[in-house]
Structures are given as C-alpha cells and as structure tokens.
C-alpha cells in the first residue's frame, strides 16, 4: 500500500544540499564535480591527462614549449629517418615518400607527399611525435620532433635552411600548400539503377583487364608452420628483423651485406646471438634486446641470426 514518506529525512537532505551549494558558490570548498550516473573509475588529474594528451591540432593547440631548427633536424633526419624515407625524402623501397610530387595529383600515378598532398603541419608534427621513428616510437624529445618537422618542411622547399620551428613560429607554416583542396563526403555519388533484363548490348561486353602474368609471378604469402630451424629463422626474420635489417635502418647490418656480416662474425656466432638477445650498442648503431620483440624466445632469435648469417655470407 502507498504510504506517506517520513518528511524528516528529505528536510535534512535539503538543508545539507543548500549548505553544500552555499559553500561551493562561496569558494570555501573546492567545487565538487558531481559523479557520473555510475561513478565507475577514477577522476583523471591534470598530470595524468598531460602525460597522454599528445595530439596537436591544426591551429597548433597541443604544441609543447620547445623549438627545433632545420639545421638540427638534418642530422636527426639522416640518423633516424633517412634509412626508410631516403636522404631527400624520396622513400626507400615501399616506405613513404615525404617530399616532391608537386603537381602530380591529377596524374595517373599521383605522388602524395607532405609538400604535394598534406594539408596541415600539425599532422606532421603530431605523427612524428606519435609514431616515429618506426622502430622506436615515442622516443623523440619535443626539441627533436620540432627539428625533424622543420627539416621535412625544408625538404619540401617550404622553409629556408635557417628556419626554427617553435610554438611561436608554427603559425607561419601551419597550412601546407595543398590546404583547401579537401572536400566533404558527397556520397552517395553514383546513382546506379536496378535493371534486370537486356541491361546492355551483348556486343559491348568486353574483358578489359585480367591479372597480368607479372602479378601471378609475385607470390602471395602462404604461411606455413615452420618445420626446420632454418625455416623458423626465416619466419622470425620476416616477421621481426626485416624491418631494420632489410634496409639497414639505424646502422643495422643489411641482409646480404657479406662484408658487414663477416666483420661482425669475427666476434663469433655466439657473441652475435648474445648481442641480439640481450641488446648491444655498436659503433654503427644500436641493437635493442631481441629487436624490441621481447615475446620472441631466445631460440627463435638465435635461429634468426643464423638465418641472416647464412643468407649474407654463403
């Protein structure tokens, strides 16, 4: 049955609330953020947010207090970026081309680079900071990120060689040349009809393309369970080591570079394997322990080293 509630409690609650509002508005106590409906989790502090809030927006919001010059950027770029992107931003193998390509967007093979296609410098800074260098992401300082960003702009002839990029000078280069050439999604943009009978002239039906012989020759990978140690070595190499050792990123000895591998082998195969497992600071570069792939077993790393030796020296 319905009962009248006891009025005593609501009155007390109302009084308490009124007092809380009074105190909050008077600034006597910190303004409490009312909890959400569920109240799960913990409130994020400013310091916690700052540690993860790394994005940079087109207007420069989010840029750290630092600066970096084209001059400093050149050295950093050569050291950390050129192995994949090329000394002039031309790209190595299938790694992205960073410079050039102006005027190619309407051609059959458009080259979409920072200078020819990108819209915002914030994107460049943000991406370098979040994901580069490829093999050691989140390792660059704010100064280094400014410097490399400045150098990539320089490679695209967008700044002079004495340019220094900072929070203050960012506005001068915030908009890249292709800015303004992006449009909203107009789809659906094709109005096809559902015709059922005699929809086209049979004589007009022609085969216009088929996979070429060339495409057939390029093998599609069929992963197989590695049976022999050699196969396991190759598998580990392809899945983990190739990123650096194919191109010679960060001073890594390139697969097939006989002279380089022979030089290193003079220390003995066991030492080489030990360095690969434990990590090693060499003269030409730094080998992180297991190439940063700590999920790999010692045996797997050893087989990969043996595979690289066999492929390079024999």
């Amino acid at each position, binding site marked *: 049955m319905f009962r009248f509630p006891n009025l005593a409690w609501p009155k007390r609650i109302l009084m308490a609330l009124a007092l809380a509002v009074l105190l909050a508005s008077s600034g006597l106590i910190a303004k409490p953020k009312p909890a959400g409906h569920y109240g799960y989790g913990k409130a994020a502090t400013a310091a916690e947010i700052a540690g993860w809030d790394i994005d940079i927006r087109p207007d420069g919001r989010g840029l750290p207090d630092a600066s970096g010059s084209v001059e400093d950027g050149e050295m950093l770029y050569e050291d950390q970026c050129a192995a994949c992107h090329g000394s002039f931003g031309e790209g190595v193998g299938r790694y992205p081309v960073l410079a050039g390509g102006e005027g190619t967007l309407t051609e059959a093979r458009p080259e979409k680079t920072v200078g020819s296609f990108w819209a915002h410098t914030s994107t460049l800074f943000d991406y370098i900071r979040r994901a580069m260098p*490829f093999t050691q992401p989140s390792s660059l300082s704010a100064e280094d990120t400014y410097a490399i960003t400045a150098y990539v702009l320089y490679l695209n002839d967008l700044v002079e060689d004495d340019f220094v990029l900072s929070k203050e000078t960012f506005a001068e280069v915030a908009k890249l040349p292709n800015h303004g050439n992006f449009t909203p999604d107009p789809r659906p943009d094709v109005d096809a009809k559902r015709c059922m009978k005699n929809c086209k002239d049979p004589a007009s039906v022609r085969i216009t393309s088929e996979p070429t012989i060339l495409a057939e020759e390029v093998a599609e990978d069929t992963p197989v369970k590695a049976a022999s140690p050699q196969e396991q070595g190759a598998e580990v190499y392809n899945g983990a080591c190739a990123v650096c050792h194919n191109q010679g990123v960060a001073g890594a000895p390139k697969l097939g570079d006989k002279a380089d591998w022979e030089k290193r082998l003079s220390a003995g195969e066991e030492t080489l394997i030990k360095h690969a497992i434990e990590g090693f600071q060499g003269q030409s570069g730094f080998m992180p322990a297991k190439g940063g792939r700590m999920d790999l077993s010692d045996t797997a790393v050893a087989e990969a080293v043996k595979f690289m030796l066999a492929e390079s020296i024999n």
Partner: protein
Amino acid sequence: MRQKKVEELDKLVSSIATAGDKLPTVERRQFLSQGLSMLGGAAAMVAGGTALAATTSKYAPPNVPPWTKTLGQGVIADPYGVPSPFESNVVRRNVPWLTADRIASISFTPLADLKGIITPSGLVFERYHAGRPEIDPDEHHLMIHGMVDRPIILTMDDLMKFPSTSMIRFLECPANGGMEWRGAQMTKLQFTHGMLSCCEWTGVLLSTILAEVGVNKGASWILAEGADGALMSRSIPMEKALDDALIVYAQNGEALRREQGYPIRLINPGWEGNTCIKWLRRLEIGDSPYYQREETSKYTDLMPDGTAREFTFVQESNSVVTTPSPENPLKGKGKYWLEGLAWSGRGKIKAVDVSLDGGINWRPARLTGMIEPRALTRFGMEWDWDGSPALIQSRSIDETGYVQPTYTQLRAVRGSSSIYHKNAIHTWRLHADGSVTNVQIS
C-alpha cells in the same frame, strides 16, 4: 599471340551473351521441388538429372573406416579447440609486395572457405600500423577527457561494470579491393575482397560512457587513440558516437583477440575499419576534427581533379560471389549452389541480384540466414551449369535503395586513383573447365 587472345575473348563473350536465357527459372525450380515431394526420397537421388559421382574412397559404404573401430581423443586433448587438420589451408594470408614490411601491414580473411555470416575470430583480417602489442588487461587504461564535466580513467574491470550490449556487424578496411581500381590484379577472392570480416561484438555503447563523463556544449568530435606503437588515432563525429559506436571487449563470445585490439577496441558499425581504433587507450572530446595522419595523408579519396574527399566514413553497399570463385572452381557441369556475401554500411541488405552473362541479364538471389543492419548477409541461388563459359556477377541493393555500381559508373565519378572505397560489381570469369579467374569487363 595478342590477336589470338582477343579472338578467344570475343568467342567467349558471344557464347555467354545467350547463356542467360538458358537458366533454370523459378518456375522450373518449383516444378522440381513439387515433383520431388510427390515422388518421395528415392526420386531425389536422380532428380538432379546427373548421376551421383562415384566415390573412390576405400572407406565408402559398405566398408567401415578405422576411426569407427577405435577410440578417439579424450576431452581436453585440445583445452582450446582448434580446427581439424584437414582445414589447415583455411588461414589468413598476406601479399608481401603491398607493404614494406609485416609490422605495418595487412592480412586477408579466407572468404572462399567461410559459411554463414560470422567470421571465426582467428580468421578476422589483421591491420597493424606498428605491429600487434601484447597488453596485460590489468595494466590497460582508458582515459576520457577534453570537453567533459568529469575526465575519468577506467580500468578494464571498471569498463565491464557498465551495461553491456552485443551486435553482429561487419568490419571492412576502406582499402578492401583497392588494388583493383586500375584493373583486375589479384588472383584470388581472398585478396580481392578479404579485408572484410563480420563478428558479434560485445561491449559498452560509447554513448553510455559519454553520458557518464558529461559532454560539454559545443563538443562535436572525438579523438580515439590506441595504445600500440603507432598510437593509432582517428577523429569520430559526435553523431556516430551517440548513435551506435561501441567500445568492444568481446568478439564472438570470448575476449577480443589480440589482433583485434585486446583488451578493448572501438567499433563504428558500417564505417571504415580504420576508424575502429584497436587497443583503445584514450578518447578526447573536442570541438573540431583533429586531422590525424590517418585521415589526411591516408584514408582520403583522391579525385580526378586533384581534390580529395576527407572523412569518407561509410562503407557503401558491396557484394561478391564466393562460390564459384578462383578458390572454389566448379567440377563439371551440373547443379550448384551459387553463393556469396553482401553488405552495406548504411543498413540492411534488401536484395542481391546475380548475373551470369556479364551484367546483361540479372535475377534475384535468395537472402539466406540472418539479415542484420551493417552485417554481412549471405545470398545464394540454385544454378544448373551447362558447362559453357560465364561472366558471374552479383549486385547488392541496400535498404536505402542504393544499388551497387559498376566499375564504369564508379570510375566516371571518381577516376581510379582514390585507393579507398571501391565497391564496384565484381566479375568472375568461369571457364569451360570449371576454373575461375578475376576479370574486369566493359
């Protein structure tokens, strides 16, 4: 040599131009099924009009195979079950020349071997930008901040206390089939359409989390960011976040797979797979898009005039025949169940038509099984193949009335340099010997 090939093609085309008329009609199917029910089971053996293939197996009746005469493996022989070794060919594969390495790369779902609409978790295509991280869920956090009343940090335990919801939705890379924009290039279904999967996803609606933190007035975009080495990130409009975006922790009934973002990922149903950030660690609520690399330099659609479309989120309606296909050739003339998959990022599939003559004549296929919005939808059709060459196509129509376009129609508007969002009608060329190859036709 070249001339001979052209003549051959012309001959093929003229022979299939009339093939559409020879198809068994719906009326004939009805007649057959009525006849079957009258004649009973015995008649069914020969109703197909072709003799049943003689089996060459030494274990065919009346013989008894050895596995019937011994005991098999006991329980928990495989504590986590794995497919039969006879299915070892059904695996994800990659195309080495597509990407510089396997760390920032993609693998393809073996669509030709799958049935129904659910992709087994271990066969869902992979796409990594910095490899697959190994994350301890007890050490993973989701931070929500920006234009909100209460910025919070959630543990995975926290997240699982929110009301949970499940939905079956497809996941497709916007570059699916992108290698075919300029012409037929890939030799198998796995590679022409395999950046596509469909799972039951379970998690918390993003709208629930947004209500919990209290979104400020004027907020219109959300940056979603992963915890992988690429800190992979995309901007999501508030409308989608409040519609059906889901923070997912389970897939096909079990914890999300590592390849799919364990312990949590975002799923934006019907939208570019790229927006469905994996290993989700951060959601920042803001008042404008963040213009991340993956929504400017990449995942924008270059048009013939040199402009590019940005924020092209929806995966428009698409379809493909999975049998026959290069992986599923036909073994001689006779009756077959032609089947395939259709999907639309805008909602449910309304109909699928099939053509066997390169798009001259079409007839509706049957939609089989579940029809869920923004999910793979299976279609099929009985077909009595007379052994002559055919150009097999499927065409989907979604609930908005959108009709899947031809390559000619698509290229007329978008050219062939846009890389993404290729959803043109696909053609399989069925040869007289039953083999199937990928072609494009005018």
